[in-house]
């Protein structure tokens, strides 16, 4: 079992991303409002105020999507779908996706995918 984390920089892709999750077999996820470190520093810490130009292109907010997946096949199906929706995870500024092991879980079974 793994925790899948996707930090999506462009919120306009949310609908497509969630459709990709469902299509790949992720029945549920938790969506968090989040913000990038560079953006926060440049706009909320006066000492770094002159780096706004350096951070241009960064979105004011991003979304972090958490989902528990049991089957690696879900990840294999999801990756190309996400790439298609957001224009490639390898492109700077689009987002990052990673998993971390989950060694304990409590909750309804529908919280994990039906692969």
């Amino acid at each position, binding site marked *: 079992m793994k925790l899948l984390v996707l930090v999506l920089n462009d919120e306009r892709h949310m609908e497509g991303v969630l459709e990709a999750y469902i299509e790949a077999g992720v029945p549920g996820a938790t969506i968090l409002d989040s913000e990038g470190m560079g953006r926060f520093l440049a706009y909320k810490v*006066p*000492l*770094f*105020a*002159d*780096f706004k130009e*350096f951070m241009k292109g960064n979105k004011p907010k991003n979304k972090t999507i958490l989902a528990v997946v049991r089957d690696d096949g879900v990840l294999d199906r999801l990756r190309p779908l996400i790439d298609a929706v957001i224009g490639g995870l390898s492109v700077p500024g689009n987002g990052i996706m990673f998993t971390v092991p989950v060694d304990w879980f409590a909750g309804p079974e529908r919280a994990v995918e039906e692969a």
Partner: protein
Amino acid sequence: MPTLSAYFGPDRCAVDVSAPTKADAVAALVDLLAAAGKAPDRDALVRAVMEREALAPTGLGSDCAIPHAQTDAVTETSLAAIRLAEPLDFSAPDGTPARLVFLIAGPKDSAALHLRLLSRLARTLCDPAFRAAAIAAPDASSFAAAFLATDPPENVTA
């Protein structure tokens, strides 16, 4: 982690500097860089630092401020440090004036290094032990030594 010694030397340090205004303090810092050959266009660097000051304050509180600028007036990143004779307002969040003032000047195309140095310096200035040593330093060389002592040992890589 950038080491301060790569960008700073005892020749770019002074204590008990008289600076009634922020512009005077910035000028004193730039003059140290100019004397060390690090500010080929002294007036342009002063202007760039003051323009940056107008954007948002660089006072950190706890007696410290870090005015800085990225500008074509310099060709390499360098630091200067002064201890003021009298505290000076740098609009710190806690409202306290600054006595320890550090300048970072870097070229426009070195934003990543500038950011790292700014963060490194801000972290260093949060250390009460360093601030106490800097305030108590009897002369410029002691002040510089206290500053450089915050670098990690040479055989430690970060």
